[in-house]
C-alpha cells in the first residue's frame, strides 16, 4: 500500500494533526518526567535503613526531674524493659535512622583540620549494635572500658574524649577510598577517635538528595540527655503487645516523665515517607489521567475522521481494498501522527527535565524512561484508534454508490 495518499490526506487536516502532535508531545514529555520522579522516590523509599526494621519497637522517654542521675535512671528503665516477655534485647539510644533527630559533626583528619565531610553521630548503650541488628563487616564491637558519658550537660563534650568509633561502610569508602579504615584516626570533635569497626549499612536520621545519606559514625558514648529513646528487639508479632507493656512498665517505675511516640520502626519509616507516598500517588494519578485524556482525544478525532470519510472508504472498498487494508490505513495514519508527536516529545522531555533540575533540584532523567514513555504512547495511540478503525473497516462498499 502506498503511503502517499495517507500523507496527502493528513496535509488537508493540518490544524487538527498539528494539535494532536502537540498534545502527544506534551503528554510524552510530562509522563517521562513524572515516571522518573516516581522511580527516584521509590528507590529512596526502599533504601534499607540497616537496622532490623521488622523487629524493633521504640518509645521515647523525657524525664522531668533533672536532679536524678540520668545514666542510673536509664539503667533501671532498661532492666525493667528487658523483663518484658519476648524482648530479646534493649538499648537506649539518642537517635535512629529516619527519626529526624540529627546530630552531625564535620570529620577531619587532624586536630582543627578541614572537615572532609559531615557524618551523623549516633550514641547508645552497649547493646545498641545487637538490638538494632547492625551488621558488623569488619573490626569489632566496642569494649566495655571504651564507654564514656555523652555529657549532654556540657554541650555534648563526650565527643571530644571518646576513644573509638564504628563507622558505616559508605563513610569508610568516602574517607579512605580503597583502603582499610580499621585503626585509622579521625577528629569528629577536638580529640582523636580510632575506628574499630565498620557496619555494612546505616542511614542517617534525615535523608536528602546527596550521596551522604549513609555517612554514619557510632560512638561508645552513653546518652545522658533528659530525652532518650528505648529500642526493644523482639519477634515481629510481639511488637504491639510489647509496646503496651513498655508504657506500663516505664510509668510504674517513674511517673514523673513524658512518654512520647511509642511506635514500631515500621511505623516510623511509614511516617518518614508519608509525604513521598502522597506525592507518588498524586503523580501516578496525573500520569494516568494524562494518558487517558490523550487516548480519548485520539479516539475522538479518529472517529470524526472515519465519519467524514465514509464515502471515500466505501469507494476504496468498492475498488478492491480489503477490510484489513482499511484497518491498516487508520493504524498507519495514527502511527505517523503519534510518532511525530513522540519525536517532539522526546526533545521536550529533556528540555522539561533541564527546567526541573534547575528549579527543583531534581535528578537527571534516566535515559530508559524516554524510549519506554515513547513506546507506551505509541501503543496507547494504536489502542485508541482500534475502535474507530474497526468501524471504518466495517463500512460496506455499497456506501460509495449512495449520497
Amino acid at each position, binding site marked *: 500500500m502506498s503511503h502517499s495518499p495517507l500523507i496527502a490526506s493528513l496535509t488537508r487536516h493540518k*490544524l*487538527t494533526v498539528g*494539535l*494532536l502532535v*502537540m*498534545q502527544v508531545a*506534551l*503528554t510524552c514529555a*510530562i509522563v517521562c518526567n*513524572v515516571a522518573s*520522579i516516581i522511580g527516584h522516590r521509590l528507590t529512596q523509599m526502599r533504601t534499607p535503613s540497616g537496622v532490623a526494621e521488622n523487629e524493633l519497637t521504640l518509645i521515647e522517654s*523525657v524525664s*522531668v*526531674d*533533672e*536532679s536524678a542521675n540520668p545514666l542510673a535512671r536509664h539503667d533501671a528503665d532498661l532492666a525493667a524493659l528487658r523483663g518484658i516477655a519476648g524482648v530479646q534485647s534493649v538499648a537506649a539510644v539518642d537517635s535512629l535512622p529516619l527519626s529526624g533527630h540529627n546530630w552531625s559533626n*564535620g570529620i577531619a583528619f587532624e*586536630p*582543627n583540620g*578541614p*572537615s572532609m*565531610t*559531615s557524618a551523623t553521630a549516633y550514641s547508645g548503650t552497649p547493646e545498641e549494635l545487637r538490638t538494632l541488628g547492625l551488621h558488623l563487616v569488619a573490626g569489632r564491637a566496642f569494649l566495655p572500658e571504651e564507654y564514656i558519658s555523652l555529657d549532654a*550537660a*556540657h*554541650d*555534648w*563534650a563526650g565527643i*571530644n574524649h571518646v576513644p573509638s568509633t564504628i563507622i558505616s561502610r559508605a563513610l569508610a569508602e568516602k574517607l579512605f577510598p580503597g583502603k582499610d579504615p580499621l585503626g585509622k584516626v579521625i577528629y569528629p*570533635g*577536638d580529640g582523636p577517635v580510632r575506628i574499630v569497626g565498620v557496619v555494612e549499612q546505616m542511614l542517617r536520621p534525615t535523608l536528602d538528595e*546527596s550521596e*551522604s545519606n549513609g555517612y554514619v559514625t557510632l560512638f561508645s558514648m552513653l546518652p545522658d540527655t533528659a*530525652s532518650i529513646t528505648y529500642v526493644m528487639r523482639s519477634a515481629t508479632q510481639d511488637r504491639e503487645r510489647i509496646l503496651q507493656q513498655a508504657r506500663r512498665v516505664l*510509668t510504674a517505675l517513674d*511517673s*514523673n*516523665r*513524658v*512518654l*512520647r511516640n511509642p511506635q514500631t520502626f515500621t511505623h516510623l519509616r511509614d511516617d518518614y515517607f*508519608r*509525604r513521598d507516598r*502522597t*506525592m507518588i500517588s498524586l503523580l501516578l494519578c*496525573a500520569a494516568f*489521567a*494524562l494518558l487517558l*485524556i*490523550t487516548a*480519548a*482525544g485520539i479516539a*475522538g*478525532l479518529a472517529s*470524526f475522521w472515519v*465519519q*467524514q470519510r465514509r464515502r471515500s472508504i466505501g469507494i476504496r472498498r468498492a475498488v478492491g481494498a480489503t477490510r484489513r487494508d482499511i484497518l491498516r490505513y487508520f493504524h498507519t495514519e495514527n502511527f505517523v501522527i503519534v510518532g511525530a508527536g513522540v519525536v517532539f516529545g522526546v526533545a521536550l522531555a529533556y528540555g522539561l527535565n533541564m527546567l*526541573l533540575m534547575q*528549579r*527543583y533540584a531534581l535528578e537527571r532523567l534516566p535515559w530508559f524512561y524516554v524510549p519506554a514513555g515513547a513506546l507506551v504512547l505509541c501503543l496507547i495511540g494504536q489502542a485508541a484508534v482500534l475502535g474507530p478503525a474497526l468501524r471504518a473497516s466495517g463500512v460496506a462498499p455499497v456506501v460509495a454508490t449512495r449520497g
Partner: protein
Amino acid sequence: MLGYYAATAIGSLRRSKALAILMVLVIGLGIGASMTMITIFHVLSGDPLPGRSGQLYAPVIDPRPLARDRSESPEPDGNFTWPDAMNLLRAKRADRQAAMAGGAVPVRPTQRGELPFYETGRYVTTDFFAMFQVPFAAGSGWRSEDDEARARVVVLGSELSHRLFGNASAIGRSVRLKNTDFRVIGVVDHWNPQPQFYAQINGRVFGKADQFFLPLQTAQELNLDFNGRFSCWDSGGDARTSDHCVWLQFWTQLDSAAKASAYRDYLRSYWREQQAHGRMPRPANPQLYGLMDWLAHEHAIPDDLRLQLSLSLGFLVVCMLNVVGLLLATFLRRSNEISVRRALGARRWDIFLQLGVESCVIGFAGGVLGLLIACLGLWSVRQRPDGYAQLAQMDLSMLFATFLLALVASVIAGLLPAWRACRIPPALQLKTQ
C-alpha cells in the same frame, strides 16, 4: 440572538453527546486539578501578618569561617549566634527587635495524678509581642528588665491555658515547666500566623500555634531544650552561647524604607567591627529581607507543592489542546450547516459568535464540573498529615476564579476552531450537496 445561539449550541451538543461529554470531562478535569493547586498556593502564600508585615525585616549576616568544603552551602542559613543576637538586641538600632528560638518543655499538670505532657512554644525577648501585634486575652508580655533579670515568667497560649486552668483566669498562677515554676503573666488570644514566619523555615512552618512564650535568657540559663537546626563550626565545644554556633532567629521592625536602609548600613558596620575583632572573615554582605521576601527566599511553600502546581498547569495545557482538537472536529463536522448559513447571508462574524457561544456552554459545564473536582481535590488535601493541609479551603475569590479560568480557557480553546470554521466558504459546500 445570543439566547438563540445558546439554544442551538445545546441542541448541537445533544446531537454529538459522546464528544460533548468528553469535552466537558476534559475541561472539568483540567480546571479541577489546576484550581486545587492554585487554591492551595493562594492560601499558603497569603500574608501571615496583614497590616504589619510591611515593616518586618529579617536581617541575615554570615558569621561562618571562609569556605573550605565544597559541599557547604554558599548562603548562610539565616540563623544567629547567641553573641550576635545579643549585640543587635542591645544596640536597639531598629524600632523594635527580638531574638527567639523554638522550644519544647515537659509541662506538669496542675491536677494531681495526671501525667506530665510535652508542649512546644517559643523563647523570645520582650519586643516580640508588640512587634508582631500578639493579641492578649488577659495580662501582657514582660518588660525588658525581665529579660535581663532572667525572670521566671511565662505567657501561655489559649489552648495550654485552657488545658491547665480550664476557664479560670491563669494570670498570677504558677505553672511548672520542666523543673522550674513560672508565673503566668499573660494569655494569648488565639494567635497563629500561617506560615509561622518567625520560626526556622522547615516542613513544620505551617500548623500548630506556639503554646507558651518565655524569656530567651531565662530559657538559656535553665538550659531548656530548644527545637530546630543548631549548626556549629570549628572546635571549642558546641555551647549554645558560643560565637560559632547558629541557632537563633532575629526579627526587626523598621517603620520606613529610610530606616530599613539605615539598618542595612548598621549591619554592615557591625560586620566590619566584628572583623576588626577577628570574627566573621567573609566579605561584609549583610542582607535585610522583608517578611514576604524572606518567606519566598526560604521556600516556605514546600518544593513538592510547587512541583504539583507546575504539573497541574501542564495538565491543564494538555486538556486544553485536547479540547481545541475536539471542538475543531465538531465544528468542521457541521461544515454543511455552516456553509448553508453562510449562503443564506450569515456573516463570518455571526458564525464565529455562534460557535463561540457553543464553546462557552461547554466551558460553563466544564467549570461546574471543575469546581466539584477542585472541592474534592481540596478535601483530599485536607486528609494529608501535613501542617498546611487544614488551610486548604475554597474561598469566594477562588470560587469566582475557578469559573473565570474555565470560561477563559474554553473561550481560548474555542477561538481557533471557530476561526477555522467561519472560513468555510458558502458556495463550495452547496455545490457538493
